[in-house]
């Protein structure tokens, strides 16, 4: 039984069905059972406290810097108790890729939806290709699947270091820490770095100095590594960030052994780099915990994580919804849902059934009153009226009102619970499921993920990421740091598979197909961005798109409160964050910012900006962001 809120149960054969004893199974009355979460005050109470108490102040971060795109964050802080009393995540821009896709040939989606993001265009292209493959019934040849996998692994190798050292890293640098918590930096100067034999830094302060933005060698090295990843990426994708070669049915690039060699030269540069990145973040996280255990509460949320898995087994993937449960579990990253630290499913169909999207506090109109287009999925299992296949995107701009609507992000939920979409979710699900294909480099133990990383300049090393006992800002970053090695080892496996296929003469990379011109079809792309979960749900009718819905990791994490006033994950993380800043200067909000940035927010993906009056730019942005 994986659902505790939705009235969906499973028969003896494991087939989902709707409980018959529930009159209105998807009614919004009655708060769902959630596993904890912060106590929240009503907005009226907050306003009253603000009026009566001088030490309770509004602290706004607009924009939140060092995140992709436009995110604002509103907090109300008790400056005496050093506690956040209210937190609201605000996606300030609107975009409507869902609207743009309506009425188009589905093949346009691979190029149009790529533009949803200036970092992770390839994952949007791929996820749309997967959705189209399902709707059109086309299966790529093995090398097409493997090369697509490899392209996306490389994209993660661009994305994760970028976040760790260019966006989040400065939060732990000398430049920031010496200002916000000088006593902590003094302690860092006296603290030996336990992994100095791996990363080469004697003290924690030495690491912090090299995390300094613009000048620190870790910052500059990460800039260099983004180049290495981009060079590998364009060998398959043609260009970055919007690849030209991802197509439904495989890829459209010619792959040779020379291409593979060129890719290997670049992937292997991440072997040593991944060892050092994990060691650096291990030392940083543990230093903060040792210095003050309250850092374990910075960005803390309930351990509810969702991931759709990535990197298909070419022998298992057949692009059908019918077999999604089986081919999903054969992926190099296992799909799954973690609730309160426990995995409740790894079945993609079941994950799909639990998805709903709410707009109670978002600048959109509800659509559920118009009737349900799909009461069941293609296998006859029950679907909510709020499921993406039933959703309509109806923008309704308005003034910000904390009691009502305040953001362009929506509230995706799984089994009516707020979820965290994370790079680490793929580690966690893969580690505990123990379903990863047998291979020489990665082992899932049930409580950890071991990675045997080959020698470079550093010797061969076994890294081990452990399922954390607390889920917070530090563990999100630590997990992302281990993802560099995990991804590079997946890439190495994929590279070996591609080489085998080439040697065996299986060099076909795409399958021809026709878009059905009659009838209706449903498709869904289950995948993930570097930062986590990504799904594209589409519906075709007579050969054109009649519904297209994108849910990104940041849509999930940046979500506002839902129909039951349950905060989204950024909000929950900030509500749980103690204010530990001690610096004598102006309030920096570093603890709150660490909490938010640990999610690796990507707001262009979140809000899919578009304006009927034309696409406008926020200074000019590849995401074609527009202000409504």
């Amino acid at each position, binding site marked *: 039984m994986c659902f505790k809120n939705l009235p969906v149960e499973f028969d003896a054969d494991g087939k989902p069905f709707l409980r018959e004893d529930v009159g209105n199974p998807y009614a919004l009355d009655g708060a769902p059972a959630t596993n904890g979460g912060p106590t929240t005050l009503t907005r009226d109470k907050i306003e009253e406290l603000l009026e009566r108490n001088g030490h309770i102040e509004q602290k706004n971060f607009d924009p939140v*810097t*060092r*995140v*992709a*795109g436009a995110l604002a964050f509103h907090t109300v802080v008790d400056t005496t108790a050093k506690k956040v009393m209210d937190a609201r995540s605000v996606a300030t821009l609107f975009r409507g890729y869902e609207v743009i896709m309506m009425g188009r040939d589905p093949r346009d989606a691979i190029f149009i939806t790529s533009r949803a*993001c*200036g*970092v992770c265009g390839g994952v949007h292209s791929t996820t749309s290709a997967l959705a189209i493959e399902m709707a059109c019934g086309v299966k790529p040849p093995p090398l097409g699947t493997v090369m697509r996998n490899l392209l996306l692994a490389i994209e993660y190798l661009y994305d994760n270091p*970028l976040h760790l050292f*260019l*966006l989040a890293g*400065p939060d732990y640098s000398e430049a920031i820490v010496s200002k916000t918590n000088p006593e902590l930096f003094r302690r860092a100067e006296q603290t030996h770095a336990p992994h100095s034999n791996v990363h080469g830094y004697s003290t924690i302060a030495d690491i912090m100095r090299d995390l300094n*933005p*613009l000048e620190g060698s870790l910052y500059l090295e990460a*800039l260099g590594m*983004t*180049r290495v990843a*981009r060079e590998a990426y364009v060998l398959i994708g043609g260009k*970055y*960030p919007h690849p030209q070669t991802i197509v439904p049915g495989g890829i459209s690039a010619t792959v040779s052994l020379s291409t593979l060699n060129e890719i290997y030269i670049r992937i292997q540069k991440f072997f040593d780099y991944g060892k050092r990145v994990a060691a650096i973040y291990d030392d940083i996280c543990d230093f903060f915990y040792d210095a003050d255990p309250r850092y374990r509460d910075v960005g803390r949320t309930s351990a509810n994580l969702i991931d759709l898995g990535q990197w298909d087994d070419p022998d298992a993937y057949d692009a059908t919804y019918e077999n999604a449960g089986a081919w999903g579990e054969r992926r190099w990253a296992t799909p799954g849902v973690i609730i309160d630290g426990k995995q409740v499913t790894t079945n993609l169909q079941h994950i799909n059934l639990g998805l709903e999207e709410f707009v109670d506090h978002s600048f959109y109109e509800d659509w559920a009153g118009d009737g349900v287009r799909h009461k069941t999925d293609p296998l006859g299992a029950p679907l909510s009226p709020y499921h993406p296949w039933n959703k309509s995107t109806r923008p309704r701009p308005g003034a910000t009102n904390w009691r009502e609507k305040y953001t362009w992000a929506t509230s995706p939920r799984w089994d009516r619970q707020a979820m965290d979409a994370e790079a680490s979710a793929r580690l966690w699900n893969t580690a505990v499921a123990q379903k990863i294909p047998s291979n020489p480099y990665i082992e899932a133990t049930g409580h950890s993920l071991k990675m045997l990383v080959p020698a470079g300049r550093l010797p061969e090393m076994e890294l081990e990421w452990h399922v954390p006992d607390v889920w917070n800002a530090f563990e999100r970053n630590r997990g992302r740091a281990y993802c560099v090695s995990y991804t590079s080892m997946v890439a190495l496996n994929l590279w070996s598979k591609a080489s085998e296929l080439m040697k065996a003469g299986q060099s076909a990379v795409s399958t021809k197909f026709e878009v059905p011109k009659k009838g209706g079809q449903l498709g869904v792309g289950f995948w993930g961005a570097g930062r986590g979960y990504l799904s594209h749900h589409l519906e075709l009718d007579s050969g054109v798109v009649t519904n297209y819905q994108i849910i990104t990791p940041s849509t999930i994490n940046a979500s506002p409160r839902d129909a039951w006033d349950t905060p989204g994950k950024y909000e929950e993380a900030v509500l749980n964050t103690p204010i530990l800043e001690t610096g004598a200067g102006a309030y920096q909000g570093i603890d709150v910012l660490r909490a938010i940035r640990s999610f690796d927010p*990507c707001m*262009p993906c979140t809000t899919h900006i578009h304006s009927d*009056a*034309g*696409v*406008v*730019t926020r*200074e*000019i*942005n*590849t*995401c*074609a962001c527009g202000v409504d």
Partner: protein
Amino acid sequence: MSIEVLLIGGVGYTYLGDLSFGPTLVERLRTRDWPSSVAIEDVSYNPITVMDWLRDDPQRFHRAVFVTAVARGREPGSLHRSHWRPAGPSADQVQDSVAAAVTGTISLENLLIIGSHFELLPAETEVIEIEPVTSGWGEGLSAVAERRVSEVTAWLSAEIESGSESVARPASTMS
């Protein structure tokens, strides 16, 4: 013996009205023959990647002219030409520009700030901006911007053909 090369770089978005001015100009310039001392490039991509490209041969360009469209509330369709004189952007500004660049923002301003910080721009760098008339979806520039493409093309051609690559001229406006 290496020759000194002038870089003409367009920055902008395709299919976005006059915001496509830079790439459109590059497209037009590429249909003509140019001496080997002139490089025409569309640099409408992540400024960090542009910096990587410049870093590969840092002495290649002795001068650069970047062309783009930026809405600054001036007369629509007006052209504005100026030297890029880095006014010492703060470390925070540079950091914000890097963060914007690696997460996908294409912007001449970011390119100039980042290029200056990493000392990769030619010592003589000029900027030509058009104040956009249109910024909506679709192909083609506004009629005014179309004329401006021709004007800038003629101006650059004349300058290159005459060999007068003096950039020691004051910032000017062509309305």
